[in-house]
């Protein structure tokens, strides 16, 4: 059904759902009105505005039904892998094995927001001594403790080394709670020195060949662990197939990002873009369905672009957003204040880059893992952000600070300085807590000021 693009509240969506699916339910097994998720505890949905397309509904339903999908996989005898921190590499290996399903327990990051703190995960973390000086990923400890948000994985695999202290410390506590972890090393990515062979990574960064080799060796250890878990070896052919499928997801996201961040009027709201981009890291536990969800979304956005329709006024200011927001509502607030999303760097931009298909698969995966923005310098990250700002023609930059995140203090400063030295766009640094309602007025004021400054520079 075609209808004018718009943002709808949860109630409005439920009415629309009745109209759309009065005669037959959506053509996928996890469909239903969004209110059912809110009734199940995802209360934040009641405060959000959603895109009104069927494709967006499917996206939300896909996201919010992940727990059921994981449970069903477990019930069918599949092995569950909890990948942690690398955001985009280990799942590609896991999905090469038909009897293995991977997900990120790190995703508990968003549970305090989505459930409006009702799950008590942060309180559990508090009781374990992991207080608000840590980033929202501390909710993961509560999720393991309550076992109420995802099934406990059969194998936990965590990257450490050049990662944030928050995650390293919290994952170690998890191990201390009796959840064995396979740790693998991701070295601090550095620029090749004179005389060192250089490798160009996805996204264009460079690293010494020796570092790629180290990561490849580490991924070989994971490969062995997968063999132990699944009972079958993980062959290069299986990996190549998984890389091809992964790249299909990444290509779809690239197209989606291109349409959504360049077309005027804005064809898809910021919130749906955030959710769609998140699918890149582990396909929301179903690689094939992830492709179908994204295909429908891309098609919807493409037709809007062709028709010249969108969800926001044409003159909304084009804002590039750095870092994920602990409260999803912040994405709505940006649009309420006259902004629109025009490029993102949510800490996992390496998961949006295609994995090289012309390299042996393990080497290709090593290159992909090393391209993680968090394992290198903040200046590398800033350079990549700058390139994306130019690519999408952003008019302003918002750097959201993640409460408690140890990297934000230094990184935000370096990124801001780097951008200021290379461009004249207004930049805002702003902290977004897991529930930002209490600060919504001040956040809006600051976003409005950013938008107005950008407008005055037109």
């Amino acid at each position, binding site marked *: 059904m075609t209808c004018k693009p718009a943002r709808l509240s949860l109630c409005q969506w439920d009415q629309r759902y009745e109209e759309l699916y009065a005669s037959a339910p959506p053509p996928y097994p996890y469909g239903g009105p969004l209110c059912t998720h809110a009734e199940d505890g995802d209360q934040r949905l009641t405060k959000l505005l959603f895109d009104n397309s069927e494709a967006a509904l499917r996206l939300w339903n896909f996201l919010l039904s992940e727990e059921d999908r994981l449970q069903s996989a477990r019930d069918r005898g599949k092995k569950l892998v909890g990948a942690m921190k690398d955001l985009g590499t280990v799942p590609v290996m896991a999905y090469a094995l038909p009897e293995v399903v991977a997900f990120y327990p790190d995703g508990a990051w968003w549970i305090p927001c989505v459930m409006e703190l009702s799950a008590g995960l942060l309180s559990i973390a508090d009781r374990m001594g992991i207080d608000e000086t840590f980033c929202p990923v501390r909710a993961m400890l509560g999720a393991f403790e309550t076992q109420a948000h995802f099934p406990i994985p059969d194998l936990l695999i965590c990257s450490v080394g*050049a990662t944030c202290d928050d995650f*390293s410390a919290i994952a170690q506590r998890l191990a201390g709670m009796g959840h064995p972890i396979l740790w693998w090393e991701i070295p601090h990515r550095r620029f090749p020195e004179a005389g060192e062979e250089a490798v160009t990574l996805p996204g264009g960064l460079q690293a010494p060949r020796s570092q790629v080799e180290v990561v490849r060796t580490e991924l070989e250890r994971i490969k062995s662990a997968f063999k132990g878990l699944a009972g079958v070896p993980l062959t290069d052919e299986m990996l190549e197939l998984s890389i091809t499928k992964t790249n299909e997801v990444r290509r779809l996201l690239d197209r989606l990002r291109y349409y959504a961040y360049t077309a005027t009027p804005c064809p898809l709201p910021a919130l749906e873009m955030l959710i769609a981009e998140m699918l890149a890291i582990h396909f929301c536990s179903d690689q094939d369905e992830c492709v179908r969800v994204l295909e429908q979304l891309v098609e919807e956005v493409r037709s809007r672009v062709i028709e010249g329709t969108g969800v926001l006024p044409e003159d909304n200011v084009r804002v590039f957003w750095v870092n994920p927001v602990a409260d999803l509502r912040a994405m709505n607030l940006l649009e309420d204040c006259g902004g629109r999303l025009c490029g993102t760097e949510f800490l996992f931009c390496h998961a949006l880059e295609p994995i090289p298909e012309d390299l042996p698969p393990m080497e290709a995966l090593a290159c992909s893992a090393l391209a993680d923005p968090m394992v290198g*310098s903040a200046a590398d990250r800033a350079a990549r952000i700058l390139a994306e700002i130019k690519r999408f023609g952003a008019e302003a930059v918002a750097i959201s600070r993640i409460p408690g995140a140890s990297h934000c203090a230094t*990184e935000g400063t370096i990124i801001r300085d780097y951008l200021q030295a290379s461009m004249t766009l207004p930049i805002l640094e702003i902290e977004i807590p897991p529930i930002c309602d209490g600060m919504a007025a001040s956040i809006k004021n600051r976003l409005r000021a950013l938008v107005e400054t950008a407008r005055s520079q037109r």
Partner: protein
Amino acid sequence: MKRIIYSCPFIPAEWLAAHGLHPCRILPGHGQGHDSPDTLAGLCQYARLFSNCALRESPGAIVFSTLCDQMRRMAELLGRQTSIPIFLFNVPSTWQSPAARQIYLHELVRLGRFLVTHGGVEPKQEYLSEVMKSYDRKREQLKGLRQHLSARQFSEAIVNFHRSGSIETNANPKGIEVDKLPVALLGGPMFADIFEIFDLVAQNGGDIALDATESGERTLPDRFNPTNLEDNPLDELAHAYFGTIPDVSRRPNTLLYEWLDRMIRERGIRGIIIRYNTWCDLWHAEVSRLKEHAGLPVLTLHTENTYAPGERLRTATRIEAFMDLLK
């Protein structure tokens, strides 16, 4: 001789010294100005003060390590603000795999190249062995002082040794201490101006019989194997530092727990004071587990500056109460 300033216990002083440079592992103090990156919310005060302090030393170079994310990023932040050469040493968090050890060895070699670029001389194998033997001997001498010095004197002797490479033995020997309650001091690095904790414990009938802070005996490497030291000194150096130092940053951090258990037994420890710096996630996250694991009374001190004017009294009172509890 050019001084190379660092703070990470996994950087071998021997390697710097063998390059003809002066290894200087420092402990910052409070109140050391704002001439390096400004105070930033969420930034570890130790990392910031180390940078300030390192700059004041007029060093030939500063070596940071990736032991924690804060220091890794501080190296970058400082590198943007000074022309002093900065080296970031990638200390792997994992330690059980051949790849981790390989990274560490590779980093030693890379550090060597950096040192040569900045005034050092590439050492011959025999010379490296000699330097290592000398350090090994001095560390044994240092450890032997524990019997003769007060807890504070002993810990300060370790700090001085890290800073200068020599052992100062002119401290007055401690008298025979009877009926002092043996306590462990555990945690991240100390600041130069908070060693009064030792006195406060002593004044309340205790004795810090184990300095398990980052700047204390916990981070002294194992003795070198004499055969390996002759055959492949660099490999032996890597083994002694990377293979044996227990730290909270290691994944898994089992070495720390094993070492602690052994030392608690050996020294008859009756209580533990855990001191860590605000925004130090690695220690902060481990405190509850350490409490459960140790099965001993634990006092945590985690203020930004334990001896800031308003805090000093509070810290003294808490230590007094803790020691009363142990009695």
